[in-house]
């Protein structure tokens, strides 16, 4: 079970993802604004952040950059509904670990999250061993 933060301004999608991930045993923190997401990521010991690119106010990319600048080292998955994959490229270049383009299947979404969590876990184990 992992604590996952989801920042997504579309309420229905946020609710569905939350329900799905909770049913799979994760603990979910969910918010619609980037500013709150930034604070929670740094304060609430989340293991993974799911960040939508197009958010009202500060964009997901800005929040991503700020989190990395603030030293947040946990995996970040960004979601984008833009036509071009530029947003994904920018996200990856700005420090995201993975990028998923909408519309996606929940199974796909979940497998990306699991992969990221496993990677983070194995990295921290290697880090502890070495």
């Amino acid at each position: 079970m992992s604590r996952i933060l989801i920042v997504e301004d579309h309420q229905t999608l946020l609710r569905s993802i939350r329900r799905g991930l909770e049913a799979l045993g994760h603990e979910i923190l969910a918010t619609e604004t980037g500013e709150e997401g930034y604070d929670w990521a740094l304060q609430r010991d989340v293991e993974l952040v799911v960040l939508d690119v197009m958010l009202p106010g500060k964009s997901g990319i800005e929040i991503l950059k700020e989190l990395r600048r603030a030293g947040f080292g946990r995996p970040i998955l960004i979601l984008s509904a833009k036509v071009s994959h530029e947003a994904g490229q920018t996200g990856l270049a700005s420090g995201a670990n993975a990028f998923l383009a909408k519309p996606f299947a929940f199974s796909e979404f979940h497998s990306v999250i699991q992969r990221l969590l496993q990677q983070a876990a194995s990295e921290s184990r290697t880090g502890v061993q070495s």
Partner: protein
Amino acid sequence: MIRRVNIRWRLTLWFAAAMTVLLVGRSFWIYFMMERRLATIADVELNAKFDALNDVLEQAGSPEELQGALARFADNQRDLQIEIVSSDRRVLFRTPEPAPATTLRPSRAQMSNASRRYETRISGEGDQFRRMTCDISSSSGTMTVGISRSMQAEQTEVWDFAMTLLTTLPLGVLAAFGVGYVVSSRALTPVDKMIFTANDITANRLDQRIDVPDTGDELARLAQTLNRMIDRLNKSFEEMRRFTADAAHDLRTPVTALRTEVEVSLMADKTVEDYRNSMQTVLDEAVHLSRLTEQLLDLSREDHDMNPVAHEVVRLDTILHSVLEDLRSVAQQKKININTDQIRPWCVTGDPVRLRRVFMNLLSNAIQYCPAGGLVWIEGSSLPDQTTVVIADNGPGVPADDLPYIFDRFRRVDQARNRQSGGTGLGLAICKAIVESHGGTIWMESTFGQGTRVSVSLPSSQAAG
């Protein structure tokens, strides 16, 4: 044929042709002026000779003496042919070589003395002679004295000159051609540069601009005009790009939500209540998506002028009352007061169905954003050319920063609340497109926290009043 030739060569050809006409004309003019001048000089000389001959004629006493004096005179003036004829056509004196009489040409240089006539004669061999004739009265009757001299030397001189002109003419034409080409090339160099830059500008490189020459001339103005056109293209491309991105976002996100909702619901058995909630979510998203697609289609139709504006006389008051009737239950639920006292029989020209959509959007916005117990009112004015209708409310208003973009597509002032209320962010953009396709204008005034006024101005119908 000449239309296929580029401007540089056309200018060169026109310049060379004009210069050729000028050169040929000038050559002819110089030729005739020279010929005329030489004839005049010859006439002055003939005049002087005639005066001398006249002296001889006057001084001689007897006819024998006269013949002798004339022979001596003619002997001294070998370049002259002298002929004296009596009034009865008898030849009184004639030098051995008579003046040619084959061809006569009218005099080109008449001198002021009317009794002296001048003419140029051409012999059978083509040699020119200048001849002066004058009638003199004497005791023995009237005589006609004619003296001629050869114009051979002058003719040769004029001919040589004409030959020089003729041989230098092609050189002049060639020079005109060269100068024309160089000048037109220099003049068109900025155009070539513009073409090069313009060719380089594509949809993805609309940030480039054409260099404006610092001359203030037509080419500078052309460059400025092209740059302004590229600005407009760039702006509309940017708008299109943003619109596509926004549309993609607004379509893909609800589709993802729909899919996730269904997938999550199918992951494990749920209670009937859970399924009911899921179905409601799916329905809400489906309704939102269908409204969004409908509005995207409407905008696309407006953008591509697929709805030609009908020129019917439309009673806006009828439309407003009908829209308010449809919105009555929503307004009553929210306890919104709607004041319709100011509505007058306003007549405009246009499409009643599309104008109804405009006022439906504006009035539902006003009711939606007004807090419970709020007030919405309609006012307006009608002038001979323009009728303006204002939909006003005392709702929360729009922040000043958002006001300039309020009619932009997918621009939502309060996105969260808008989504809750089912807004797509296209309603005002559609209103703007419809009003503008009617030749009207739409604008919003708002004070944040105090209320909003949306004004729609449309061309009045002639039937108004």
